[in-house]
């Protein structure tokens, strides 16, 4: 198995446990500052939402024919973020790729919180938020059922499933590590962790079922990752709006999702690693590999963008052509370019190893990736602004309410992530140990 993974053998199992448990030490001022910042943003969002429920969606910048706007943009953005986590934790697990171990816990947490954020939007964005539960097939005195032919119903199920599965996957993976923390902890913390560790003792019998189950969960989660964003993409692709009605949407969205997800991983992990002093566990090796993944997906996006324009031109369909012309040169040109430049072109910088292994450059790029991917969704939704009937054309035009909700979503996400990072091992102790050979009586021995 891979050797370069960790700077073993200088590290022993004891070191790993010690270092990871050390990350749970009482937090510094800086941490609380961040936390309060996040909570503050979240409150802004909450207040905005209250006003919207009271006054109506009109507070936001909806401008028919653009009946969806920043809310759906942000929804798709967060769903996308969610994808990197499960990809790294599940798919790479199945491929037995060595570099996932050190990073998957953090990314998985990110996934869960991102999906938690996204899951709020279907409720926020509907006109009568207080009856959102009509979207669920529950027996009621009206004898009415929801419409399973609607992509929005698919969404409800896809997001619901994805949230449930990725959450249980995260918790499941945490069990042995929580047990390890438990055995180091003292006082009330010990009691808490003992409860959370669900009686984990690491007996041969437990491990036997556990590792099997983990394998199957991974096997189920893997296709789920691909399905969820495909379903989200069909919200658009299954309609007839020029600019939405594309067959490449599913792969295009999935690639985009992973691209944005890994981008967010960089944004979160680079500072986190420094703050929690995990440099010798999360190394250039990991960033290099994730950067390659980014490069790969970014290139797929490049292709997809190009293909969209090609199809628009080649199809000879005047509606498509107008839409894509206006994407680049219409009133919303600025959005169009702030999607294409970071996603298609900036990602290409990652061909250079120097950039892949330079954390500063990676961090900067990752920020642009986040912005670019948010705008990708914005631009796609903007296709509504100029569809079939020219008389009805108009531009979308966000207001403070849109920005309030957007800020709130970041606050909500950040809040959860910060809380997690300080209270649970962000690095998978047990899996790292897997890569550190245990001491042997007889020299040489097993390898």
């Amino acid at each position, binding site marked *: 198995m891979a050797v370069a993974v960790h700077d073993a053998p200088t590290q022993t199992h004891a070191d790993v446990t010690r270092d990871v448990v050390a990350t749970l030490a009482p937090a510094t001022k800086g941490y609380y500052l961040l936390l309060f910042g996040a909570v503050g943003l979240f409150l802004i969002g909450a207040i905005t939402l209250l006003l919207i429920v009271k006054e109506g969606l009109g507070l936001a910048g909806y401008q028919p024919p653009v009946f969806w706007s920043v809310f759906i943009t942000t929804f798709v953005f967060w769903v996308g973020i969610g994808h990197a986590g499960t990809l790294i934790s599940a798919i790479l697990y199945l491929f037995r790729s060595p570099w996932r171990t050190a990073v998957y816990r953090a990314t998985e947490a990110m996934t869960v919180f991102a999906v938690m954020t996204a899951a709020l939007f279907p409720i926020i964005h509907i006109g009568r938020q207080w009856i959102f539960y009509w979207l669920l097939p529950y*027996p009621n*005195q009206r004898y009415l059922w929801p419409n399973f032919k609607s992509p929005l119903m698919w969404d409800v199920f896809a997001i619901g499933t994805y949230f449930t599965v990725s959450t249980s996957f995260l918790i499941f993976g945490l069990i042995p590590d929580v047990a390890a923390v438990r055995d180091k902890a003292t006082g009330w913390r010990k009691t808490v962790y003992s409860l959370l560790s669900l009686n984990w003792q690491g007996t041969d019998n437990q491990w036997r079922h556990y590792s099997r189950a983990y394998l199957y969960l991974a096997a189920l989660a893997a296709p789920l990752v691909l399905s969820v964003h495909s379903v989200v993409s069909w919200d658009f692709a299954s309609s007839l709006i020029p600019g939405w009605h594309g067959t490449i949407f599913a792969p295009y969205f999935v690639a985009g999702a992973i691209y944005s997800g890994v981008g967010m991983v960089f944004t979160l992990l680079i500072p986190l690693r420094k703050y929690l002093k995990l440099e010798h566990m999360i190394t250039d090796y990991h960033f290099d590999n994730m950067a390659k993944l980014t490069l790969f997906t970014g290139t797929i996006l490049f292709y997809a963008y190009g293909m969209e324009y090609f199809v628009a031109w080649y199809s000879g369909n005047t509606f498509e052509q107008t839409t894509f012309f206006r994407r680049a040169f219409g009133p919303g040109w600025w959005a169009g370019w702030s999607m294409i430049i970071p996603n298609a072109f900036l990602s290409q910088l990652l061909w250079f190893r120097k950039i892949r292994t330079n954390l500063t450059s990676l961090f900067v790029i990752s920020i642009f990736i986040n912005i670019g991917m948010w705008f990708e969704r914005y631009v796609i939704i903007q296709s509504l602004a100029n569809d079939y009937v020219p008389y009805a054309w108009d531009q979308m035009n966000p207001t403070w309410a849109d920005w309030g909700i957007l800020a709130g979503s970041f606050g909500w996400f950040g809040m959860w992530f910060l809380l997690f990072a300080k209270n649970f091992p962000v690095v998978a102790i047990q899996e790292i140990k897997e890569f550190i050979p245990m001491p042997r009586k007889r020299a040489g021995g097993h390898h």
Partner: protein
Amino acid sequence: MMRKSALLVGGAVASGLAAAVLSGFTGATTQQDPAAPAAPSAAASAPPAYTIAAGDSAFLKGPKQPILFRHDIHAGQYQITCQYCHYTAGYSSEPGIPSMQTCMGCHLIIAGADSSNQKEISKLRDAWNAKQPVEWVRIHYVARHVHFPHQRHVKGMGPNACATCHGDVARMPQVWEVNDVNNMGWCINCHLERKVTRDCTACHY
């Protein structure tokens, strides 16, 4: 009932997602067991026509009305048909509340058999002389987004039409709400049994 079992199946399948929501929102919505609409026969428990001490009808079932109008006497004892007073029900979507004139049509002459009735009837006459319409307390009400064409139901369901929804008022000294007519499931049950339309825009537009 078939509907019920069907619902249970649906429920079982959906409950995985629905359970939480249901528990959270059944309070908020008008959830009720669709399979058990209050049967019209419930009216059978109504007391027969008897004299009621003047004024206090509060102990009777149903909200207290400004004048104790005895449906059990008018419709029951004297067999006056519903549409004698609610005469627009046959050709209008609205049954109409009989005008005071309609009441006075008879009660100019009829003063009431006993003191308690006389007392109530005198209330009516006072109101008429004062040209003050009586403010009846409303009992049956369908939401504004529902259009219920009375004429069509009266035509379609024949003589017993009224009782189907309003219960056997002929045996009610004071009318109470026998069925929650504002409950869609209840309407649908009837439409299913009679194999008539379930098209949404039949009622909602």
